[in-house]
């Protein structure tokens, strides 16, 4: 086990500072995408495993309307926690999520320009796009794309969405997911994520280490499988109840129906499933079955969301 005593140390005064502080990196990238016409959104306030699960991605990529959005999304992956003892692995990592709908023809250049903006000289680095097709079984979503490597380090997932909620997408959106913890480590020349400068006075470890330790302990040791299963069943039932009720509605009645709430419960299912998975209490078969249950919910949400919007549009006309 690594000693963790150094990690909560404050940033050394007067030490040579390389690269932007973590929070400056976040600000800089958001500023860049705001200039590119993105709505700046906030992180979603329900636990998510990836920026894709934010309704600003999952729902906005459906349907025909153009949209551009960027937001920071702390993403929880219970199985990836390492009690803050591994210098590269986190239970909760920080993503910047960008959606460009439709995908512009020069999207790769626009993306690369964002790297210039955070101080990376593209001619002095080995930057490459290596095949990595993304898939989220619980969201019924997949796309074709790459992982972007910076001198061998995976810094961004770059995906042309093809399906979401089981529906073919038209137009195609492009999703850019920046791994901010990694990028910051690279820019600051720091090997241990907990030693990153968050700002001029605080380290990443000071801000986040306790959270990593406690949630690793919760997910691997303390989470009650029985309770978590119950919560999963309850959340699933609530989502299904709402979706069933929506199916009974006609015309105008649909307009203010809380499809968005059904989606929140679908997200809760996904997170609870991840906890059970990290807890090591689901067999491979059960695993596939639970993923199928969440996917069923997310696909129904996607369909109803589109249906509701077209109904609302008709009512307006």
């Amino acid at each position, binding site marked *: 086990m*690594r000693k963790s005593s150094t990690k909560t140390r404050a940033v050394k005064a007067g030490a040579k500072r390389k690269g932007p502080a973590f929070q400056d990196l976040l600000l800089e990238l958001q500023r860049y995408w705001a200039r590119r016409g993105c709505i700046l959104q906030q992180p979603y306030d329900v636990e998510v495993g990836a920026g894709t699960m934010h309704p600003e991605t999952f729902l906005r990529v459906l349907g025909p309307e153009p949209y551009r959005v960027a937001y920071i999304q702390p993403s929880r992956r219970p199985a990836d926690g390492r009690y803050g*003892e*591994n*210098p*590269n*692995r986190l239970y909760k990592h920080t993503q910047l999520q960008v959606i460009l709908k439709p*995908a512009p*023809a020069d999207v*790769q250049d626009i993306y*690369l320009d964002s790297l210039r903006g955070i101080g990376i000289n*593209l*001619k*002095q*680095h*080995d*930057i*490459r*796009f*290596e*095949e990595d*097709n993304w898939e989220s079984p619980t969201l019924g979503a997949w*796309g*074709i794309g*790459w992982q972007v490597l*910076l*001198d*061998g*380090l995976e810094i961004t997932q770059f995906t*042309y969405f*093809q399906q979401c909620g089981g529906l*073919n*997408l*038209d*137009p*195609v959106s492009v999703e850019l997911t920046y791994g901010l913890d990694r990028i910051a480590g*690279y820019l600051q*020349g720091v*090997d241990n994520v907990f030693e990153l400068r968050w700002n001029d006075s605080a380290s990443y470890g000071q801000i986040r280490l306790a959270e990593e330790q406690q949630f690793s302990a919760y997910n691997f040791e303390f989470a009650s499988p029985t309770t978590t299963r119950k919560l999963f069943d309850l959340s699933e039932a609530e989502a299904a109840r709402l979706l069933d009720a929506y199916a009974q509605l006609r015309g105008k009645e649909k307009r203010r129906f809380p499809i968005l709430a059904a989606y929140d419960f679908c997200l809760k299912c996904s997170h609870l499933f991840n906890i059970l998975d990290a807890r*090591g*209490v689901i*067999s*491979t*078969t059960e695993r596939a079955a639970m993923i199928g249950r969440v996917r069923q919910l997310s696909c129904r949400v996607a369909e109803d969301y589109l249906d509701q919007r077209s109904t609302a549009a008709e009512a307006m006309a």
Partner: protein
Amino acid sequence: MKGRGEFLLEIGCEEIPAGALPKATGELKQILEKHLGAQGLVEASDVETFSSPRRLVAISHAVRLKQEDVTREVTGPPKSVAFDDVGQPTRAAESFAEKQGLPVSKLAIIKTPRGEYLAATQKISGRPAREILSEILPQAILELTFPRTMYWTSANGPRFARPIRWIVALLDGKVIPFTLAGVRAGAATVGHRFLGKAAIPVRGPQDYLAKLKKNFVIARAQERRQKIEKEIHTLVAKKGWRVHPDPALVELVTNLNEYPSILAGNFDPSYLELPDEILITVMRGHQKYFAVENAAKELQPHFLAVINLDSDRAGLVRAGHERVLRARFADARFFWETDQKCRLADYLPKLAQITYESRLGSYSDKVARMRSLARWIAEQWFNSGLHQADIPAADRAAELAKCDLATEMVREFTELQGIVGGLYAQAQGEPEDVATAVYDHYRPVGLDDPIPRNVTGCAVALADKFDSLVACFAVGLIPTGSSDPFALRRAALGVVKIILDRQVPLSLSMAVSAAAKTLASHKPKISTSAEVEKQVLEFLLDRARFILRERDGFAYDEVNAAFAAGADDLLDAKQRIAALKSIRHTRNFAPLASAFKRIRKILAKAGPPGSWRLGAVRADLFREDAERALHSAAQRVAEKAGAHKRAGRYREALEVIAELRPTVDKFFDDVLVMADEEEIRKNRLTLLAELLREFSTVADFSEMAPSDAK
């Protein structure tokens, strides 16, 4: 060349997956040659294609600028029908002329072998190539296939590996106009993403290649590969290092870079405490680095990375790669230490939570079955005189074989399954024999992969594979076409390879039965039918035929003939095949083989054996000397051949049998098998049936194809 011009097509894309490039490049050549050939614009194999991550390119140096004019003669009605008695054109002649769009006066009379006919000469003028190409190219490009395709313009838009962003299409220096996926073909290419210019006008293939090179793109894979190999060689020679030959990695990095250069980096020598297998997997599999050794083949704390740049001027790239590798190695060390906080056997209970297949239970269940089978196999071998066969060792190795599936290391590096278990077993003081067996038990993973190094490993590997085959077949998971999720073809291939290469006898049918019994008596207690066992055996024999033909170089009919006489003991079958191969071209053999074929036909025609077969051949029913001679020769030969056969001298046995040939020939010359007298006929048929049975125990000669006229 007059009337011909240079052709250039470049399909500019966002980065195409490296693994898809070689096949797509080959296809592009075929597709263009097919279409251009069909239009008479090129001769066969006149198109060269190549590719790099951002482009698929075709060039041809002699494309016709215009199709040739074609003169075609169309034959009409016979002269006798076309003209009446006084030589006036008939209705038939007029309607033919009308159809051809010509006046009757322009028609000619031609002489054919069938007589004189009316004929029309049609001249079709060729179209300009540019016009044809602008029609053909858009659809030809979309005929390319890729393992996965995407759409990007709209859901109904074209599908390709990645978005097409520019197209260069030139014939004789002029643009071939067309539009594909919203992209207009033009005359400007794009250089290296970071080092080159973005819009480079080109005039033709030579100009294109030269300008690309100036803009840091080496378009031909062959040249990129040479650059990589040369730079690795120079660097390694200078430092006194060695690099493991790794053609697959060279191929991969060739197709991952438009301008590959080599960079040497270092890592902390303290990581060399970790096993080489783990270090190499991290470097090769995850980072695509070449591992470096010294002359004594010891891994060195350096690596070679292929980067997509001309050089690492500021040293930033090297620092970056070293940093990534440091993190990866730190992870591996963390797993190595964490995993070994308990012993390998302590992971056994966790296997109950890892499903092998929903109906076939967990890995814990599979391990129980593997142990039982591994003991049985070791026992069979021990009893047949193989004294290295160690039953307790096989049992222990089978018990530990799957434990590493629950470790962090294998969860992270799945390709190290087995190897990690073997390394942990070794580090934890398990007997060498057991650790090696665990390490090797997934082997062989292909035709060229070696089999487990020791007998215990072979026993565990066979136990694993027989269990997978029988269990999966029992629940209907039988491979079809390209679908083989449990890698059963590989398992069957492994069984055959281990038996043949280790040269240990094992009855396939007994092993399959043992696996079926184990499956029925262990959790989840699935019973199988005799039909399933037969299917598994047939599946195994199919792989055996494949190996014997493709790897060992035996002919189709040699394998079939020997297998027809039994293939349960593959080692024995292989010896019989070898004997057959060595004798098939001798003087007596081919005629004897055709005689046996004749016997088989006669017997088949005679109807069901029950209707003619006598209890034994009766000497008193012989009428001809030739049948008496055959009978006594057969008895004599059978005795001699039998002795050779029992001693495993198959070639000698076959040679003796081949000596029957003159006697058999004489029999067929002098004796009419289907004699009128029923008893005599039955006796003769019985004689032949006995002969066939007696002499088909080494190989069924009637399966042999007639040898080529020599």
